[in-house]
């Protein structure tokens, strides 16, 4: 009976017995199913972290919850033997959120129709944007971004940037060889909206549309669109060490400008606004095949923006 106490060997021998080849009919079914199953776009969100006032408040609240729970679990504090206090865990998968009745901080997950608020940059942290969002869009507060429903390969993302400069060759952005995303670009730009627009138009690595003026209340800006290159160019671009297997194409430089091309033939529809001295870039990131209805919804979201310096 000694062999029966060797449970490791028992399990190995027992599990060795059984099918080890995939039946052809299963392969056929899988081939048919992926033929009608779109791949989800993996949004390579900007490589940056913004510690906003909301995040700080959330972190503080979480710390208080943990402290309270720990206190209650101390002997003599009524916690031992009592009902455990649930600690909320972070949500990894977007989930539905309750209907928003007033401007609320952008939550993680699928959004109900309502008014949401974000703090798009860390400096100044007081700058906030309020927007009206239709149901079904997906909030990514950690990236200060919203994605269109479904997030397929033709999905649309609305994001925010603040650029210090540009890369003259957005494909060869890793100028110091470290792979760091926040390297200074080699094109310095002046402080105004017009300075940035002129620099974008002067770059031949992408094509840009004719800019037009926009107004958000008391704040003025410009709109233009960039058509980024295809896979033939992206495949030759500098890569993030240990990260995306594909090359990255960075237009803007700076610590809060880490958006790169989200795929071949990506389009950046840019709204650049001077919000009381802060040059904020709003990006609608989309593709030629993006659903027109989603693109119109994205434009409507941006048009609803109300900026608070």
């Amino acid at each position: 009976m000694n062999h029966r106490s060797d449970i490791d060997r028992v399990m190995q021998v027992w599990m060795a017995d059984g099918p080890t080849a995939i039946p052809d009919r299963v392969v056929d079914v899988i081939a048919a199913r992926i033929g009608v199953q779109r791949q989800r776009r993996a949004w390579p969100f900007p490589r940056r972290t913004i510690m906003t006032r909301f995040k700080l408040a959330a972190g503080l609240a979480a710390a208080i919850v943990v402290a309270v729970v720990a206190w209650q679990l101390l002997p003599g504090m009524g916690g031992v033997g009592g009902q455990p206090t649930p600690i909320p865990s972070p949500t990894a998968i977007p989930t539905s959120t309750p209907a928003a009745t007033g401007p609320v901080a952008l939550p993680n997950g699928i959004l109900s129709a309502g008014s949401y608020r974000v703090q798009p940059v860390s400096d100044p942290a007081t700058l906030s944007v309020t927007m009206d969002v239709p149901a079904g869009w997906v909030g990514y507060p950690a990236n200060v971004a919203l994605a269109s429903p479904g997030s397929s390969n033709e999905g649309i993302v609305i994001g925010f940037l603040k650029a210090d400069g540009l890369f003259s060759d957005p494909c060869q952005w890793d100028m110091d060889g470290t792979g760091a995303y926040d390297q200074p670009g080699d094109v310095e730009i002046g402080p105004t909206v017009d300075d940035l627009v002129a620099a974008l138009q002067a770059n031949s690595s992408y094509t840009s549309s004719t800019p037009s003026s926009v107004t958000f209340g008391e704040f003025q800006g410009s709109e233009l669109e960039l058509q980024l290159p295809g896979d033939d160019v992206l495949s030759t671009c500098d890569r993030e060490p240990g990260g995306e297997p594909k090359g990255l194409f960075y237009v803007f430089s700076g610590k809060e400008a880490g958006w790169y091309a989200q795929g071949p033939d990506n389009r950046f529809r840019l709204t650049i606004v001077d919000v009381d001295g802060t040059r904020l870039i709003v990006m609608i990131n989309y593709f030629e095949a993006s659903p027109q209805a989603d693109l119109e919804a994205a434009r409507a979201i941006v048009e609803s923006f109300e900026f608070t310096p």
Partner: protein
Amino acid sequence: MDRDLVVAAQRGDQAAFVDLVRFRGGRFFAIAHRILRDVDRAEDALQEALVIAWRDLPSLRDPDRFDAWVHRLLTNVCIAEAGRERKRISNLYVLPVDDPAAPDEFLGIADRDQLDRGFQRLKPDERAILVLRHFVGYEPTEIAELLGISAGTIRSRLHHAHRAMRAALEADARAAVVGGTSR
């Protein structure tokens, strides 16, 4: 070779993904079958996991981690599948078996039957952990990383599962002894 297929599939190449399924699917199916002990359910789980894998493949950052990534998806699908109450249907398919079963000198038919019964009594996640440990060959720390559970919890569940399987075998032995003395 497989890495190229993964990268191509990440870019939407369906034929590359089907090739991956052909090349790697046998191992995945074997894992699903060991966890679920049922051909129909293993096929369903494998289909589900691989369609999810196709859908989410662009999010896989390191193509060299494809196998481990699919193991995670597949294990989670199998655990969910095992947790469902489903009418069991007899399997009438002729299964392709690459290697014949090991000679039964080490484990007799009765032993295997007892192991089957003991295994079916385990919780789905304990079954999965046993398979990942003894069939796939993952260390407890790797299983922990795969399933997003602490290594201590994995070791604890592994210990419980081992004890249950050992008890199943010993029950078989006791039954044989009792049967022998009663004659």
